[in-house]
């Protein structure tokens, strides 16, 4: 086998092992481990990954944090799928999130392994916001370019996003399951 043939085989192997599985992100089948990471990381600092006071914090919003996926693009529901929301209403943002591959769920239903529960709320005509459920049963969120936090606008821990103080985000739109990962920022949802 000459050098050129060996190189071609190596490239083919690289393509098969690394590139092709990457195409199946939508079904989460390649995810290495289950579960969204906790709000507090292994070092007990609150969400240090997201709260760097720079590139990550200012360029990743609530949709990034809820899906646990760093894109540095202030991700917008439906943009990846080419079906972005057309108005700031529950139905429009809900539809856009579904286009990104997020699966609608309910308050009581669990999500399958390698998927985690997130919740959508809307300030009608103004903006949208997302929360994510940690494996400790509590919710956390990242209001835009600010730091991720586990408290609501009243400073209370969030046990239920439907009853949390959400300021002007008065419309509760529902729950979804997303393709997360146990590593911070490493989620597999198709968003940008």
């Amino acid at each position, binding site marked *: 086998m000459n050098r050129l043939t060996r190189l071609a085989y190596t490239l083919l192997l690289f393509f098969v092992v690394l590139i092709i599985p990457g195409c199946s992100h939508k079904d989460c089948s390649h995810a290495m481990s289950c579960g969204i990471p906790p709000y507090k990381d292994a070092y007990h600092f609150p969400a240090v990954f997201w709260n760097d*006071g720079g590139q990550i914090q*200012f360029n990743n919003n609530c949709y990034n944090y809820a899906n646990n996926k760093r894109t540095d693009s202030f991700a917008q529901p439906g943009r990846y799928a080419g079906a972005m929301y057309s108005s*700031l209403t529950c139905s429009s943002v809900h539809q856009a999130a579904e286009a990104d591959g997020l699966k609608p769920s309910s308050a009581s239903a669990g999500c399958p392994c390698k998927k985690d529960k997130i919740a959508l709320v809307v300030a009608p005509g103004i*903006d*949208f916001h997302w929360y994510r459920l940690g494996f400790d049963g509590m919710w956390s969120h*990242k209001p835009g370019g*600010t730091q991720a*936090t586990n408290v609501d606008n009243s400073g209370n821990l969030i046990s239920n996003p439907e009853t949390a103080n959400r*300021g002007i*985000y008065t419309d509760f739109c529902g729950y979804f399951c997303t393709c997360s990962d146990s590593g911070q920022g490493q989620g597999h949802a198709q968003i940008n």
Partner: protein
Amino acid sequence: MSSKRFGSLVDLAVFMVLFTLVSRNAAWGQAQETAKTRGLTVTVLVYSGRQNPSYVLDDSDALKQLKALLDKAKTNERFEGTTVIPSQLGYSGIIVSNESRVPALPFQIEIYKKDVAVKNEGKKFLIDEGQAIETLLLDEAIKKGAIDKKILEFIKSGKLPRE
């Protein structure tokens, strides 16, 4: 065969040299563009999901005024925490980024009401009792069309004005 291989190596080397030259020219062009448009990028943190409104503050009078207000602000020795930007839904302050290195101004400024943080190599917390820095930057945001009066009212009162 060996001369063919030598030929492809030369092709590869030529390609790499050309690629490096093109990349360097592109980077130089970008630096020139930045230098031409010197100004501060001001971002008003008001949305959670949507991109926040932002504008470039390049008016020399406004820049002078901002510098004067920063010089006038007192150091806040009592401030506890790493940022003045609160993590909450609704208005959370203003971030001023000096990426193009406007002289005599810090690399980054965070403002929320009377609390101000300036960042160069380290971070220093200041207090602007009259909230003049915040007012200046919000007024400029209105002038530049980055925010409208409805959002300004929401920022000031925390409530959305009735239609």
